[in-house]
């Protein structure tokens, strides 16, 4: 579960200091901030730029380039549904439609209760067991609509939520 914690400049600076000496430190720093807060706050950009002697535009440019980086908090759970060819051959579009209907979100969106962010992903390397998805970094293969339902129900039940 990716529990987004609220922005804290001190914690951000500490994470930046741990990594700023690495060669090519920008991606590792952005990944550390993403892990810490669940997204990259706008307030982090000048801190990172200053630490690495980059312009803020360069930092913005890098954050914007990579699909992994969010600019605002996502849901508590990250549901990545594979939409690449091997999964297409096994009906991933039907599966994605089911996820969208069940959660009431479009790919890339977060549910109103803040529980799930649904992300399309282009290959999880589980192509012999398609269709595949990943929930909070945990892989699932040969996924059916019923399995998706039970994963969603389990996550909600654990959170004490009702549906």
């Amino acid at each position, binding site marked *: 579960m990716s529990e987004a914690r609220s922005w804290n400049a001190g914690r951000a600076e500490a994470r930046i200091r741990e990594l700023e000496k690495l*060669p*090519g*430190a*920008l*991606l*590792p720093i*952005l*990944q550390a901030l993403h892990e810490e807060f669940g997204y990259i706050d706008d307030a982090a950009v000048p801190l990172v730029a200053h630490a*690495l002697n980059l312009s803020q535009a*360069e930092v913005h*440019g*890098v954050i914007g*380039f*990579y*699909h*992994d*980086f969010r600019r605002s908090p996502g849901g508590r759970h990250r549901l*990545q549904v594979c939409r*690449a*060819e*091997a*999964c*297409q*051959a*096994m009906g991933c579009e039907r599966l994605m439609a089911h996820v969208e209907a069940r959660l009431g979100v479009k790919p890339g969106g977060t549910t109103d209760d803040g529980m799930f962010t649904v992300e399309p*992903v*282009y*290959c*999880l*390397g*589980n*192509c*012999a*067991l*398609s269709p*595949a998805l*990943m929930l909070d*970094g*945990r*892989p*699932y*293969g*040969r996924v059916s609509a019923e399995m998706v339902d039970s994963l969603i129900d389990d996550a909600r039940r654990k959170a004490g939520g009702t549906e």
Partner: protein
Amino acid sequence: MKRRIFVPGDSAAVSVGADAVAQAVAREIAARGLDAELVRNGSRGMFWLEPLLEVETEKGRIGYGPVAAGEVSGLFDSGMLDAGPVAGRTHALCLGPTEEIAWLKQQERLTFARCGVTDPLSIADYVSHGGYRGLARALGMAGEDIVAEVAASGLRGRGGAGFPTGIKWQTVRDAAADRKYIVCNADEGDSGTYADRMIMEGDPFVLLEGMTIAGLATGATSGYIYCRSEYPHAFRMLQRAIRIAYDSGYLGANVAGSGKSFDVEARLGAGAYICGEETALLESLEGRRGQIRFKPPLPAIEGLFGRPTVVNNVISLATVPVILDRGAEFYRDFGTGRSRGTLTIQLAGNVRRGGLVETAFGLTLRDAIYGFGGGTASGRPLRAVQVGGPLGAYFPEALLDTPLDYEALAANGGILGHGGIVVFDDTVDLARQARYAMEFCAMESCGKCTPCRIGSTRGVEVIDRIIGNQERANNLQVLNDLCELLTDGSLCALGGLTPLPVQSALRHFAEDFQRS
């Protein structure tokens, strides 16, 4: 005899319940007070049998699968820990000796010799199964001779481009610089491929050994592994393997007591397909947007941080140790024509027995898909196969006798790529697949060159008009022109090869573009 019970920790096996099976095994061992040990091995690559549980016995390893957690207790009751299955009590899930399973027995596993066999994080296991023998030999050789050995083996880049590995290494070796780098491209983004992931999760030391040998050969003392973020489990395994290799003296300032140094660090990508292109990968490692670089200069001359750099795919590097261990001739004797050695085929998509097939180059698509794969998973007729990832061509049934080697696929308008084969049944609509190829290119384009950045979006629009039967004949002409422009005018393989799936769909499945 203390029994070892193997349940894969490979993420594909985990995706169908291997963790729950492993927990059940651990519980049974404890509850029954047995003298047995649970090992989380990599996967043998027979994914339709996962979770595949194996027991080491006097008669070899006996396989059971696919096992559900609820069946584990019954397996113990059946006497699976006895010296082989007890007559009359053989469990329905018993597959017999794993290595006698025809699917596995017909393979020639060199790169994947240990994957699924050993404990991936045990150096002792690695060494007792032939690990670090290639490094030991390389440490006694001049760098020049290591390069010559790899060149003589005929090894070509397994990432997709098929460039001779020895020539790349020679270029880096000959370049004068204060520092040189070995970069492992583990950004395995092609759908239908998972060989890199399996090695990183199932036999990570072989990759570290290959990188170390590459360093000795070229004079590089520092290595990076760029692993895609969609592989969190592989990344964790790499990090653990690297730490163990340092602790055991196989990495660091004094590699295996030789006085030579080699360092490796694993870095994570951030979800950009283009970073599998070697120059975009280098940009990303340096902390920038993953935009491709103009070539020349080649990375072998000016690569990471402006220094001479070997950029090799995981499988290329993981194949180096066996070449050094058994010799160039041994490796070269596998294969056909200019495709030497073994190919790691990955059967994917709508296929009954999907998995990793390592065999000498030259197997036909038909042998792979029907012989190993057993046809479609759905049981419906096969209609198309895409070979070589999202930039690979779609082939119809009529071309299935094409051998899987670099030249034969190119002669039929395709690419071998990283060896992924995605099977589709007769429900596939190739006009939709062609549209997706353009859509994917538009999503993942780095934006550096216009044909790819703009052409891919125009491609989606044109295919939409063709599907929607608007001025169809004219738009088909526009699409062909556009494909020609992308092929000739793009800076890298993303824009340059996106026309392959599109034009192969048009050529072999024209009827899908003519629906009213």
